[in-house]
């Protein structure tokens, strides 16, 4: 779509799982979760992915971040297949693609101080440099101060924790941030804080963002481009507002028509 090659992409990715065995003398069946998916994100771009529950969104992020090897297809980071890459390139990939998970409370080890948790990726990925400076910098970026470092996760609210989780993802100075439903576990009044933060990060740091949600308006608010996934395939891609005001694929239409808003409710034509 754009002349610059994508930072992170997947080509023709297919992934299938096997059902548990149900009959004694029949081979267990498989079902395809992702079916020949092409997906990419450019530098500095925020890409959204929406779809019903079970559509394969989480599976896609797992493959995109290299946590799961697809059955077929390639995952490309800066043009190179990550499953064929040498150790140095793999290390670079690990540093450059980070993830924010759905549940802020469970994404931080309850027995680990925030400071330690934030330094974990640096140690694990063997990144040199002054970690303390980096800590202060990143905490500033997510709007927390260094007093957080000595505390434990249970002393924070969900929104703060999600910001800490984002800070942890930012520590290795990644190029791509993958966020799987980062706000769906948050209270309404707090989710806006996190959305604004993500948006700022893309703008200020030139990060690429892959943002997953089941709520169309949240995706529209946060991203430049969005894809709709259904039945293991990407059915439609485009600028979100465009996509949601003039959906073409029936699955997109289905999603759009399901959206409730205060205004449509007040005007009496919501249901």
């Amino acid at each position: 779509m754009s002349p610059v090659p994508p930072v992170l992409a997947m080509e023709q990715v297919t992934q299938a799982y096997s059902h548990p065995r149900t009959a004694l003398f029949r081979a267990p069946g498989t079902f395809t979760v992702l079916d020949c998916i092409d997906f990419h994100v450019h530098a500095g771009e925020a890409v959204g992915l929406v779809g019903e529950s079970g559509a394969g969104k989480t599976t896609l992020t797992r493959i995109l971040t290299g946590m799961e090897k697809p059955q077929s297809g390639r995952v490309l980071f800066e043009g190179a297949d990550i499953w064929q890459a040498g150790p140095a390139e793999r290390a670079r990939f690990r540093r450059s693609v980070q993830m924010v998970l759905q549940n802020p409370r469970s994404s931080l080890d309850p027995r680990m101080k925030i400071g330690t948790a934030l330094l974990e990726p640096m140690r694990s990925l063997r990144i040199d440099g002054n970690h303390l400076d980096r800590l202060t910098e990143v905490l500033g970026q997510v709007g927390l101060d260094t007093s957080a470092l000595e505390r434990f996760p249970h002393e924070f609210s969900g929104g703060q924790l999600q910001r800490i989780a984002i800070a942890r993802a930012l520590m290795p100075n990644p190029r791509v941030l993958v966020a799987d439903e980062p706000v769906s576990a948050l209270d309404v009044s707090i989710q806006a804080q996190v959305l604004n933060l993500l948006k700022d990060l893309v703008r200020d740091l030139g990060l690429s963002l892959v943002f997953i949600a089941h709520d169309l308006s949240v995706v529209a608010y946060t991203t430049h481009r969005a894809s709709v996934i259904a039945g293991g395939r990407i059915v439609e891609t485009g600028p979100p507002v465009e996509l949601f005001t003039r959906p073409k694929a029936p699955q997109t239409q289905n999603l759009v028509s399901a959206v409730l808003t205060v205004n449509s409710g007040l005007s009496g034509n919501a249901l």
Partner: protein
Amino acid sequence: MSAAATTPVPARPKKRRGRRNLTLTIGLVVTIAFIAMAAVSFFYLPHNPNVPRIPDRLLPAGSPRYLLGTDALGRDIFSQLMVGARTSLMVGAGGALIALVIGTIAGLSAAAFGRIADETISRSADIMLSIPGMVTALVLAATIGSGTLTTILALSAFFTPSFTRVIRSAALSVLQEDFITAARLYARPTWFILLRHVLPNVAGVMIVQFTLYFAAGILTEAGLSYLGVGVTRPSISWGMMLNEAQQQVGISSPLAMWPGLSIVIVVLGLNLLGDGLRDVLDPKLARRTS
């Protein structure tokens, strides 16, 4: 979607917390007293518990010089109880500790190293659980001879499978937390994740289970020694004292009271401690099993 996960941990109602604290306190006091009794026995005993003094035999409790009286050979009962505490401590804690170490390693491996490891370990645990522990202990005593060490071994063989199961399920629930996914994402190897993240998070379960198996170990040891396949003199255990009490003077003697009572109190104390600790360390489990 639901924001339930971010709800602050609900504060416990006061009244119940009070009761739980009471449980914990009683358990702690009894356990400490018991450990203290065992510890003191190393430095001070009113009498040598193994040296018979025939002229002083079978004195009742409260006799001068003998707080709880003497047994059929004139050995001081209180001193024997003190040394018995030591044995119970060693056997119960030793058995539970070995089971804890092996069970933790096995349980973590089962949870973390894939289906084949899981099936192998879990099924082996199931098989071992089907073998009645008492029978194993009997056979083991015949195989390697009875004594403190055998008893510890038998107990650990007995407890390891259930320990493994508990640790496995606790580890499984930790492993599906998002922070594990996060650690995988920044390339932590599995063994590191187990040590750094899973172990500290199942430590509560481990401590609680340790306490409970400690108690169960004391009970089982008493049973084995009662059958005469457990601890033998010059070691002294409460179960062995009961065995002797029944052999020597018959059940109508108060001799059978003291060691029996000691067992009940200590086991009760340890169980209360375990339950209390569970409330503190492992609230999720507490709701399910207390």
